[in-house]
């Protein structure tokens, strides 16, 4: 039996994030406009404290509140991802809202709440907890997407996100009730035990229906086809820093909960969800890459690219086999998510820098970027190399690890489809880079990059290359975190 102070220590990352959010809100009301600039740094301090608190939990393996809430390395890994993503996005949004909205403090506060939601999701081990945490993430995401009320695209994106999201989560909830009905429990581990004891007797169709319905909700969060339609509109309309957050933070959270639920509650139905996940994976990467080719807006292109990336990551789940590749495939997913976090945030930061100078997000605006700011052009080059999966970059290593798991199980078809997709993706990434390097700019004026954006670019660039060149410690980190 744990005493209250011990419990508080174990949920420290969560309450620190909550306190930081409340503090930002309170200071926003009291500081006044001239000192408003402090707020993001206060939010960053809170994130730093939360990071220290999560790192101190690294060696703990505890189930709190009768198994509602698990603290293990898997959870801590995603706490780190949540804090990193939120911290970089806060840095990247400093100055972004100038003249766009008077409510800057609330943005940082709500962003801290989304970070809190991701840390909750990573630890959730009970359907009640899963549902409520996923909804905290969704509801704050709808708000932050529609945040720029003076911008009609932003509110339109917010409403579309909300309508798709509310329907997807209602379907997911219905699937959860079926699982509860089949087992009489909401605890994931207990559901898993009951289902495996009952396998053979009773109807197999009930858990399969539940799996399909859960996949609607989780697939929506990771933007897997055919539940991806929201992503392009939302990425285009949302404030760009928040689009960046959705593409890495929200996606990582979706994969965390997908892994936790499927591998603890439904491992006995692997044969059934294997086919579903494989189909989803192939459809997602092919659709994402093919439609990305035709985009003229860079945020929409990155949206389809991030849909395609979700497809590659799903291969990792399809290749999960408790006997052969259990830990290997989970760790491949974790590594991929970490490398992808830096790469995609970096790409979005370049977009933010260009958007702040040019005012729009058309791909044609990238013509001659190398002459306007060679650093931005070089950074974009590295990030796109990584997104295609060309060495020496982080996502390349991630792809390698995922393919290794697939080859181990002799799922060569999946690898071949993914490789063909890599070639297709080369086409549209090259389309942007061709403009950046070889076309003449419409406007010769150099693009200035603010200091916070430079910091984000430096961190993401170093980590995109670092996760590949010094891959060993990161692979080990992913491997030790791959315990469920």
């Amino acid at each position: 039996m744990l005493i209250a102070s011990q419990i508080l220590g174990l949920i420290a990352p969560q309450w620190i994030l909550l306190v930081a959010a409340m503090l930002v809100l309170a200071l926003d009301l009291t500081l006044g406009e001239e000192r408003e600039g402090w707020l993001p740094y206060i939010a960053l301090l809170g994130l730093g404290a939360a990071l220290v608190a999560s790192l101190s939990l690294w060696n703990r393996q505890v189930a709190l509140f009768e198994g509602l809430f698990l603290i293990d390395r898997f959870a801590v890994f995603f706490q780190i991802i949540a804090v990193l993503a939120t911290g970089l996005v806060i840095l990247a949004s400093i100055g972004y809202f100038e003249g766009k909205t008077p409510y800057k403090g609330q943005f940082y506060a709500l962003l801290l709440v989304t970070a809190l939601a991701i840390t909750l999701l990573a630890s959730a081990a009970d359907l009640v907890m899963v549902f409520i945490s996923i909804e905290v993430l969704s509801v704050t995401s709808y708000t932050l997407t529609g945040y720029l009320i003076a911008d009609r695209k932003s509110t339109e994106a917010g409403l579309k996100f909300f309508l798709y999201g509310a329907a997807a989560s209602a379907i997911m909830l219905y699937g959860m009730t079926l699982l509860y009905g089949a087992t009489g429990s909401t605890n994931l581990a207990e559901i898993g035990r009951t289902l495996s004891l009952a396998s053979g007797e009773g109807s197999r169709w009930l858990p399969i229906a539940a799996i399909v319905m859960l996949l609607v909700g989780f697939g929506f969060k990771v933007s897997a086809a055919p539940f991806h339609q929201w992503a392009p509109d939302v990425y285009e309309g949302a404030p760009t820093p928040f689009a960046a957050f959705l593409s890495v933070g929200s996606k990582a959270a979706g994969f965390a909960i997908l892994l936790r639920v499927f591998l603890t509650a439904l491992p006995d139905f692997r044969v059934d969800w294997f086919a579903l996940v494989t189909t989803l994976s192939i459809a997602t990467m092919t659709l994402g890459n093919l439609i990305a080719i035709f985009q003229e807006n860079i945020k929409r292109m990155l949206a389809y690219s991030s849909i395609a990336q979700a497809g590659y990551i799903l291969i990792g789940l399809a290749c999960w086999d408790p006997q052969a590749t259990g830990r290997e495939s989970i760790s491949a997913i974790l590594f991929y998510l970490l490398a992808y976090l830096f790469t995609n945030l970096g790409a979005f930061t370049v977009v933010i820098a260009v958007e702040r100078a040019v005012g729009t997000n058309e791909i044609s605006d990238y013509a001659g970027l190398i002459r306007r700011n060679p650093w931005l052009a070089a950074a974009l080059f590295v990030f796109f190399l990584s997104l295609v999966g060309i060495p020496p970059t982080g996502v390349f290593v991630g792809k390698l690890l995922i393919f290794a798991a697939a080859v181990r199980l002799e799922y060569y078809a999946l690898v071949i489809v993914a490789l063909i997709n890599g070639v297709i993706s080369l086409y549209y990434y090259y389309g942007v880079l061709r403009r950046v390097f070889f076309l003449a700019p419409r406007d010769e004026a150099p693009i200035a990059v603010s200091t916070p954006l430079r910091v984000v670019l430096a961190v993401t660039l170093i980590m995109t290359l670092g996760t590949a060149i010094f891959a060993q410690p990161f692979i080990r980190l992913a491997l030790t975190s791959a315990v469920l």
Partner: protein
Amino acid sequence: MVPLSWYLMVSAALFCLGIFGVLARRNAVAILMGTELMLNAANINLVAFWRHLRPDVMSGQVFTLMVFVVAAAEAAVGLALCIAIYSSRGTVVVEDMDLLKG
């Protein structure tokens, strides 16, 4: 006592009415009403399972209360978005929202 399966059938029918509403309605507020039907269908399931499986364990009822909270939060945010859109465009018909192609 009414058997469990009766409740489940009513809930399934209500859920599918909700799906139809979400897919077929043009007005954003009407789509929101469709999702409310789906949430209520899930709630009927939860309470019926709680009563018929293990009424001594309260997880089903707690789950239902959480769904109430979520429904309230979603309605507040969704309707705020509807009002924001209406004030700039004068409509909440989803088909008329075409600034974002998709």
